[in-house]
């Protein structure tokens, strides 16, 4: 079969867009400082709950220990309260269709669950019990600590985690963001008194936010939250991550993973934060470069050359730093050629204008995928929780959509020159050094290190 030509006259035109429903957002701040956002939404009879509590390490010096304790605390909070043991907590949640997950990231604790609407009051009551009276019983805490250590060891055996950790260490140096996973020996030192102390000092309503989306009445739901969480009255100041200064490393770091059949290429650099007017242009530049299937990076190293299954780029936001990131897992034998192509496409973004069709396609995709993502209870709840948790108003979404609509080809060019230029990015590769270091050295200086199995405080991917 000969290659088809695109004849636009054959393609059915798009119809008239139908209006997106605008969510009715009820927002209040309780006397204890907790921000509460309630959004009733048509859809299935469920409610989605998200709670975010600021939980950053206060300084670089305490980052490793804090991260270790935060990881154990997020599992151990569900091990018991004054009135209930682990099983009692789990059964109450399950009877309302819920399963509460508690996780930690470098900025916060994240609580989330789905639940049947009739369970709103009892689940909020349990949440209050956990926030004000998690018991951290000694023996179960030891079990959770040991499981956390095992899970971290398993995570560290994943090449994607090795790559992410190495890039974070290289970019952030002695900032807490340099230590996304705690060293095993610090996890082993965590005990129940340390968790109780950390909880008392840091699990605070001030700076925290709760989002409820789904089948609910905004007023009744807000009242239910106020009644249930009123006892959560611990006072203190929320700790946010200190300002993060990016360290741009000029040489490629190669983390040796002997025998690896693939190399994990990771590039990263700064990006505008959510309140920065340049964000919309950078997001669209990111899409055109590698943000979706219809991008230059995917067309080049996947669909033309077959080097990689799922190459991509993203814009990621943390409280104290936003990032432009490039990921490509490529066959060992094409490691250097793949890096060259990724760089080439970055350079082309930085130096030559994108086409109007590329910009229009990227814009429509970003707007369309925002609409798809927020068209479920869970998607809207997670989106709002991320915004509100970052201290932004719920109508940030609408403003951002307008900003995306106004971006021009020149705006994308300026944004790409600043943020997507190869010279703005730090690069890390994880792979078989014996096979890939010589070809990579043809492209520039390479520093070879070894992957850590048990990390040491302050060190990243080894060097």
């Amino acid at each position, binding site marked *: *079969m000969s*290659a*088809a*030509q*695109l004849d636009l006259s054959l*393609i059915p035109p*798009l*119809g*008239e*867009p*139908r*209006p*997106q*429903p605008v969510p009715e957002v009820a927002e209040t701040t309780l006397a204890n400082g907790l921000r509460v956002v309630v959004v009733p939404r048509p*859809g*299935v*009879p*469920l409610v989605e709950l998200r709670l975010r509590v600021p939980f950053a390490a206060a300084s670089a010096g305490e980052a490793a220990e804090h991260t270790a304790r935060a990881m154990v605390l997020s599992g151990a909070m569900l091990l018991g309260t004054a009135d209930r043991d*682990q*099983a009692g907590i*789990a*059964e109450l949640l*399950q009877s309302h*269709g819920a*399963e509460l997950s508690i996780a930690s990231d470098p900025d916060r604790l994240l609580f989330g669950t*789905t639940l*049947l*609407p*009739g369970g709103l009051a009892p689940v909020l009551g349990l949440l209050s019990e956990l926030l004000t009276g998690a018991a951290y019983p000694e023996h179960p805490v030891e079990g959770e600590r040991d*499981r956390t250590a*095992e*899970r971290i060891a*398993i995570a560290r*055996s*994943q*090449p*994607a985690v090795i790559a992410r950790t190495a890039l974070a260490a290289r970019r952030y140096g002695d900032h807490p963001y340099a230590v996304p996973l705690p060293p095993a020996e610090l996890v082993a030192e965590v005990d129940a008194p340390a968790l109780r102390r950390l909880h008392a000092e840091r699990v605070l309503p001030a700076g925290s936010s709760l989002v409820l989306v789904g*089948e609910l009445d905004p007023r009744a739901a807000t009242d239910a939250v106020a009644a249930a969480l009123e006892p959560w009255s611990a006072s203190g100041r929320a700790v946010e991550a200190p300002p993060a200064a990016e360290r741009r490393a000029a040489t490629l770091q190669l983390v040796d993973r002997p*025998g*690896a*059949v*693939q190399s994990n290429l990771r590039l990263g650099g700064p990006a505008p934060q959510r309140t920065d007017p340049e964000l919309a242009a950078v997001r669209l530049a990111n899409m055109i470069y590698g943000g979706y*299937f*219809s991008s230059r990076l995917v067309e080049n190293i996947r*669909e033309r050359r*077959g*080097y*990689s*299954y*799922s190459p991509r780029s993203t814009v990621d936001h943390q409280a104290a730093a936003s990032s432009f990131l490039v990921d490509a*897992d490529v066959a060992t034998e094409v490691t250097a050629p793949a890096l060259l192509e990724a760089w080439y496409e970055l350079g082309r973004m930085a130096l030559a204008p994108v086409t109007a069709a590329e910009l229009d*396609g990227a814009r*429509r*995709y970003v*707007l*369309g995928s925002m*609409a*798809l993502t927020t*068209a479920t*209870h869970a998607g809207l709840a997670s989106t709002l929780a991320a915004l509100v948790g970052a201290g932004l108003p719920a109508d940030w979404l609408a403003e951002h959509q307008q900003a995306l609509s106004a971006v021009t080809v020149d705006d994308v060019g300026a944004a790409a020159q600043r943020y997507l230029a190869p010279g703005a990015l730090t690069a890390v590769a994880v792979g078989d050094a014996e096979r890939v270091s010589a070809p990579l050295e043809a492209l520039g200086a390479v520093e070879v290190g070894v992957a850590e199995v048990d990390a040491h405080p302050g060190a990243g991917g080894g060097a």
Partner: protein
Amino acid sequence: MPDGGRSAAAVSVGGVTAAGAELTLRHPVERFALDNGLRVVLAPDRSVPVVAVTVFYGVGMRNEPEGRTGFAHLFEHMMFQGSAHVPKMEHARLVQAAGGSFNGSTHQDYTNYYEALPAEALERALFLEADRMAAPAITQENLRNQIDVVKEEIRVNVLNRPYGAFPWLQLPRIAFDGFANTHDGYGSFVDLESSTVDDATDFFSRYYAPGNAVLCIGGDLDVDDTEKLVRRWFGPVPARDVPPTPPTGEPWPSEVRRDVVEDALAPAPAVALGWRVPDPVGDFDRYLGTVLLAELLSEGDASRLERRLVHDERIAIAQSSYVGLFGDPFDVRDATLLTTQVHHPAGVPVDRVLAAVHEEVRRIAEDGVGAEELARVQARAEAQLLRQADSVLGRTLAFAAAELVHGRAELAGELAARLAAVTPAQVRAATGDLDPGTVAVLELRATGGRR
């Protein structure tokens, strides 16, 4: 909103049956067939201006011939390489530049393709699916490119990571006997490398006939208008012979099967137990008891195995149980397993883990299940089904799978109510199949990493 769905749902008393019934009512299913044999299912719901389009072809990993392992999946990739009127890369651009998303996936008994889009892009998606149903661009250049891409996919997901094949590619090899169930559905590199354009053309001709497919459209659509559009775009695709549904069932095991695999990238050991379960289609009522048994054993912190293995005895780091190779119990035919998977510390002997699992199953067999415990499990299962159904794409895929595998799209809307009606006696009876005398056990030994 035309269907007035929400006001009716304000009844939500939290009762399992009420919500289950409501889910069934809110998504009426319309169906018709074209002269070329294409089955069409429409599931309108105009509450959000989003539409989902999917085509399910009745061919999956289990239908691959010997010597062609991985071909169903490789061919799935070929369906994104362009078609008669769509150049390479343009399928993605036409969907994404309309604000939509797309993908495809290869399962045991079917291969699907789907788009989720703003409602105004419906006709464009129908054009794209019809164009590749008629004539995908099967060329030497595209095939060579996608063999390379698939090999990278297998390296990412299997070869370059710990636990990559565990247990989904490794357990069926010992749990079953027939080629359909035992072979590697991702494919050997030898088979992938030797695939030819003729193989792909033959595969398309045999399995991608319109009569072997289900088209399902859900979300913001008008039934009459959509039927006209479907006839316009899919009507001209010529009919071809439809292959008979191949038998994939096989005799039940009569003895324990046990094997060991070594994983040089893994830092800690793991073990998987697989038990043959009732026919997911032909023995549906009994099968529902098995599905809830898996939930009761492993779903969440209140489950039997989570308590026993993780919290009480601390002999596991993590555990899970599921029915169906990829964890969806309702999109597979016979033969199927209930799999229990446990990651445990190196210091815990695997036989201690196995004994604890078997003992928990025996406790249910001997003591039964309390009504209250089962009601909790059912509430959680219902919430998970509702959550899937909240997404237009999620429920459109569920309707299509139910139509293709069970012959009734409506079943997807009835599942919450059907699970809610399962009795403690049915769950207890399901333990009869979890016999320690016929289990398949696959032990993963960690030979690399830190230990």
